[in-house]
């Protein structure tokens, strides 16, 4: 069976949306996607709710609160939560529902309002082990800074190299009406931004964004009925890794996390399913989950777009530019410019699928045949990838 995207919707992302409650944000996304699809709630067989930690908004299990707002009463609903990978895992769960025949159409929807608490740092520290890790100032920021120290030493990459990504992403985001951070900046601006956890500086780090998103997928018959130019879901792969960061950085590690081995395994499986043998030549758009400046390079290398340690050099030659590059890396500005944690992976999927469907507006890259979206969560513990294509690989 071919499964594909019928329609999607995303809000403008910013620090907060004081004009709406969480469930109103989720509803706005559900309505937006349904209207775009010319569907009504009765046309949806099942819902997958994209919801990461709810500590940020202070309402436990807020999916329960949202059931009515997303027109869910009377339908099967599944909440998915794999940390930052949530939105990517949501796409995989929805695909499974359709591919198995349990549902003909699935609505994926979620919202995030991370600025509801001033104590976000404390919330992020709670994901670490209570006995061995939590007494240290560990967070997503400091964990990535730790991994960067190792990656930079292994590959001889510099902070200035990573700063190129920030400059390109913020420039790309100027064409994205939904993006949170955008604008023309220089490598020097990145280098001079305040240190957070060395080598990470403020501009190397994504913002915490509020907003909502929704996407509807369907089976072959539903695609015929609702969408003349769907984005076909041709490849999916998602893997989890050990919880222990300290198990991923020693000589016996199965998945050295500074070399992004987990994304490497994920991409191999995903590309095989999608019939991709040479991603550099066959994929035109890569919407990576990259909340930190170092992570686009790490994924380009792990996914086989280029050899380990060469992504920064190829960047200087323009290989990842939207205009004139070989692969448009995050034409949306990526997660570095917009990170509504619960729905970030879903936004990556929407931005990749829109490139196939020709609905990416000013972000549109020409002649896109294949586009990928990734998502990572739990300090790199979860990683998933989806490849969207203009033609179905699976019939």
């Amino acid at each position, binding site marked *: 069976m071919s499964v594909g995207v019928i329609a999607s919707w995303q809000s403008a992302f910013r620090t907060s949306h004081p004009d709406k409650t969480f469930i109103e944000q989720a509803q706005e996304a559900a309505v937006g996607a349904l209207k775009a699809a010319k569907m009504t709630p009765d046309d949806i067989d099942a819902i997958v709710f994209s919801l990461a930690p709810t500590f940020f908004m202070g309402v436990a299990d807020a999916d329960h609160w949202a059931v009515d707002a997303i027109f869910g009463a009377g339908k099967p609903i599944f909440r998915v939560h794999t940390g930052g990978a949530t939105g990517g895992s949501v796409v995989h769960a929805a695909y499974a529902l359709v591919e198995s025949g349990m549902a003909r159409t699935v609505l994926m929807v979620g919202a995030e309002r991370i600025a509801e608490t001033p*104590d976000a740092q404390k919330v992020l*520290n709670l994901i670490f082990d209570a*006995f061995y890790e939590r*007494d240290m*100032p560990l967070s997503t920021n400091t964990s990535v800074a*730790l991994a*960067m*120290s190792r990656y930079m030493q292994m590959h001889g990459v510099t902070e200035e190299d990573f700063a190129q990504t920030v400059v390109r992403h913020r420039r790309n985001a100027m064409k994205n009406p939904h993006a949170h951070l955008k604008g023309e900046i220089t490598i020097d601006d990145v280098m001079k931004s305040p240190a957070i956890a060395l080598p990470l500086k403020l501009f190397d780090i994504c913002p915490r964004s509020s907003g909502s998103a929704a996407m509807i997928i369907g089976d072959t018959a539903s695609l015929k009925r609702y969408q003349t130019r769907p984005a076909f879901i041709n490849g999916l792969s998602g893997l989890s890794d050990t919880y222990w960061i*300290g198990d991923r950085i*020693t000589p016996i590690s199965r998945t050295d996390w500074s070399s992004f081995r987990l994304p490497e395994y994920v991409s191999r499986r995903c590309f095989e399913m999608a019939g991709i043998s040479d991603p550099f030549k066959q994929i035109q758009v890569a919407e990576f989950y990259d909340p930190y400046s170092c992570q686009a390079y790490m994924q380009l290398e792990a996914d086989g777009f280029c050899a380990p340690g060469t992504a920064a050099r190829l960047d200087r030659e323009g290989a990842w530019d939207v205009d004139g590059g070989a692969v448009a890396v995050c034409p949306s500005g990526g997660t570095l410019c917009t990170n509504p944690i619960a729905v970030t992976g879903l936004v990556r999927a929407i931005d990749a699928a829109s490139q196939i469907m020709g609905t990416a507006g000013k972000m549109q890259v020409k002649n896109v045949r294949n586009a990928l979206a990734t998502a990572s969560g739990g300090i790199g513990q979860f990683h998933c990838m989806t490849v969207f294509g203009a033609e179905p690989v699976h019939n």
Partner: protein
Amino acid sequence: MGHAPTDIVSDTISLQYNYSLGQVAGKFMDGLKEGKILATHCSKSGLTYLPPRDYCEQSFEPCDGWVEAGLAGVIEQSTIVVRGFDGKRPAPQAIAFVRLDGTDCAIPNYIDGVDLSDMREAMKRIEPGTRVRVVFNEERAGRITDFTFHLLGAEQG
């Protein structure tokens, strides 16, 4: 409606938790009180786990022995936390994941005694591959903060 969109309702949620250590972590914490860092070993896979594990996930067998980890090891990754962190030591602080001698995993802790007045220079002094030693507090509570890392050969800070 009559309300400015910036109106808010505030709440403060305070929760107390009492985490049960269990036998494995309990033995580890008891070891700290005695100035030892205890790891578990699986004779089938040959792996020595720190933090100690009850079960070897690679051999699918229970870990069948306890060993004392070396009190020196190598930095696998490091950072200097510059922005302050609620409820932790005041910034800046050097932290690292260190693989202690005789173990196969790395554990995090503070690195004490490093001059952080020039942080770029300090990052070089704690770069991956650098050797450190374990220094225990005189007063120990059976908590991971009973010890920190110090650069090997450096004067105690």
